[in-house]
């Protein structure tokens, strides 16, 4: 590296440093703003007359689909079967099973500590019973949470779908639209992904397939205007659900997250909207899922997670930390290609699938 460049780099770094100092100001401001701002979307009201619940209890398909993965799963817990005592190796294999399921180091050690306590209280001495206890522990962690999707009592309902690139936002919207239509709600898709080539085409294909309306703009158009038009159109037609497909974006891209905030603000022009902001997470995602959830939640107030592509062998264990640490409930899971493969999240099934 030439001395000039070294100098330039240093200067660059110091400007950065200056920006960091400025942060002090920015941070305190933001904290203020957060305090002033009205709390993001209404805290889930348990099934009142107006806010009806979208998710009809689906058939327990997850477990059906888990057959393929049994073999893979038993690999890590295989060490447990046939064991008589709970020794270090037993604990190790449980730990490994959790880690392999992408539960993450921190959550795994928390679960194990709690499990040790529970095992001692219950005087469990059979390794296989440990797994049962652990499942129960996870179910306890995830219970008592409202996982329904909320509709507006009157006027259009607006659901925003956000997430990083390639998690399955568009496909999720298609499936959900079909379910809404079958449930007697009109569905309108807003193609607010004006960035990815042919994203609006993809959504339009789906809309035609499932019989939903679609509102789209030009490629490169302002996504906010698409949302505005869509909500407007839905209002004109006497309500229904507006499903807003936003462009996939890295949660680390400041400008793109700003764009998303703007989309939300436009949706907010309709009182009560958006009723849901759903973060779509791919089940193959590792620990970065937590960073994604944190950033999207801070930017646009995520109300729920949709965990997609659970029909593979990935377990999506990171949602455990997302739900427990960040308090964002998992609302739906995707277990296949068909519309009926988008089903409500069931903690018991999830826990079972983590190490079936």
């Amino acid at each position, binding site marked *: 590296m030439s001395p*000039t*460049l070294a*100098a330039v780099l240093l200067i660059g770094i110091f400007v950065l440093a200056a920006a960091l100092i400025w*942060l002090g100001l920015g941070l305190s401001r933001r904290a203020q703003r957060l305090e002033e701002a009205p709390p993001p979307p209404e805290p889930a009201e348990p099934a009142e007359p107006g806010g009806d619940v979208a998710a009809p209890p689906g058939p327990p398909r997850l477990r059906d689909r888990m057959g393929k993965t049994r073999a893979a799963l038993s690999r890590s817990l295989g060490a447990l079967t046939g064991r008589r005592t709970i020794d270090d190796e037993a604990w190790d294999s449980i730990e490994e099973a959790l880690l392999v399921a992408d539960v993450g*180091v921190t959550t795994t050690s928390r679960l194990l500590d709690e499990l040790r306590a529970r095992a001692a209280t219950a005087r469990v001495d059979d390794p296989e019973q440990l797994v049962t206890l652990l499942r129960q522990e996870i179910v306890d962690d995830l219970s008592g949470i409202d996982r329904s999707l909320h509709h507006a009592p009157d006027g259009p309902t607006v659901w925003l779908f956000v997430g990083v690139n390639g998690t399955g936002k568009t496909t999720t919207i298609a499936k959900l639209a079909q379910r809404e239509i079958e449930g007697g709600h009109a569905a309108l898709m807003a193609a607010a992904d004006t960035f990815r080539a042919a994203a609006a085409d993809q959504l339009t294909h*789906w809309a035609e397939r499932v019989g939903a309306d679609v509102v789209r703009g030009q490629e490169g158009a302002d996504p906010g205007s698409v949302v505005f038009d869509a909500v407007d159109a839905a209002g004109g037609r006497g309500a229904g659900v507006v499903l807003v497909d936003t462009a996939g974006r890295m949660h680390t891209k400041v400008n793109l997250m700003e764009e998303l905030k703007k989309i939300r603000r436009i949706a907010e022009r309709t009182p009560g909207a958006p009723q849901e902001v759903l973060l779509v997470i791919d089940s193959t995602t590792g620990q970065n899922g937590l960073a994604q959830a944190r950033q999207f939640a801070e930017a646009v107030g995520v109300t729920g997670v949709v965990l997609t592509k659970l029909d593979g062998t990935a377990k999506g264990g990171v949602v455990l930390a997302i739900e427990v640490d960040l308090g964002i409930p998992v609302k739906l899971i995707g277990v296949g290609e068909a519309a009926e493969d988008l089903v409500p999240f069931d903690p018991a099934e999830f826990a079972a699938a983590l190490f079936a």
Partner: protein
Amino acid sequence: MFDALADRFDGIFKRLRGRGRLSDKDVDEVAREIRVALLEADVNVTVVKSFINRVKERARGAEVAKSLSPAQQVIKIVHEELVTTLGGETGKLAMSSKPPTVVMLAGLQGSGKTTAAGKLARHLVADGRKPLLVAADLQRPAAVEQLRVLGQRIDVPVFSEPTDPVKVARAALKEADRTGRNVVILDTAGRLQIDDELMGELRRIRAKVEPDDTLLVVDAMTGQEAVNVAEAFDEAVGLDGVILTKIDGDARGGAALSVKEVVGKPILFAGTGEKLDDFEPFHPDRMASRILGMGDMLTLIEKAEAAFDEEEAAKAEKKLRKGQFTLEDFLDQMQQVRKMGPLQNLVGMMPGLPKEARDAELDESQLGRIEAIIRSMTPEERRNPTVINGSRRLRIARGSGTSTQDVNGMLKQFKMVQQMMRSVAKGKMPRLPVPGR
């Protein structure tokens, strides 16, 4: 965010000072920390095990160099081992002696195959080749359309036909012959590695067109599953290399290590952003630093090189040496730095930053305010801010849509920057102030 691995070791090594050799017990203790670091970076559990064993082997009894602390010594060993594992063979596409060369991309849904195909094509064009993009993803609605649009943007022809993927691939070779394209890039549909039917289709395509390079496209955010995916695809179609996508986020990218360990073939390219030229050869050393949370100075320097032009840099250096640094320069530098990408990413790449700074949420809009304030000043005020009195302050605040407190704050911060700059000019490395509240 993740603390640098060095921080984790601090506690362990405080006890070790003054010893010349690492004992087995020390190594074990350190190994546990490394294990956690690697797991948090999403390296597969099994891969972590074998990797740790290799590191232990090397670290056990390793002479502790005088210049390094034991912690640094172990980190160095881990880093070297990571680089060796990630690198190995040099990453280059195999080109057929008899054109067209066929490159087939495969992977899970949403891993970024279509975008990678477009980026690879552009990369090849820059290399003087004549690629043909082939849309063999007839599954996902509008996938063909997506590739066509990408092709248009980079001026590379796109071939497809509404038959079936195997036929499309075969017809594409003829099309390449006919139109004189020398590299064929096959974009296949995303598929689950446990989907026997679709994996069979991939095998049939491979058998028919015999690709010179079969590349697995892997999302850098992938967790433990990376190993299963790599294993299954390698078994089915025999992989020649890997493209790692979406490394522009803050994922630590342990998947890279997992996949490399399973496939044993090089990671050739990395997708680094939204734009079609955000695509570069894979750098094992950088990835190693990233997995360990050691910052990424090299990338930072490269970005600086790209963003700053030589002349401006020279000018800035001269001024800096003289100890002159005005608000105008400040504005210039700020704009240059912003060209390097989102601040959050840059800060993430800077090694040795205090944890508070790394963890701080950078609010880029603040920079816009600074800019607005400086732009609302007269040239004289920018050169010599001491002339700014009450009425000028009010004018500046009005002009920039901020308050006089903001202007005051900005000027105060700038003074500190000036001081830092002066100490840089004197050849001292000033301490980075921690953002105050």
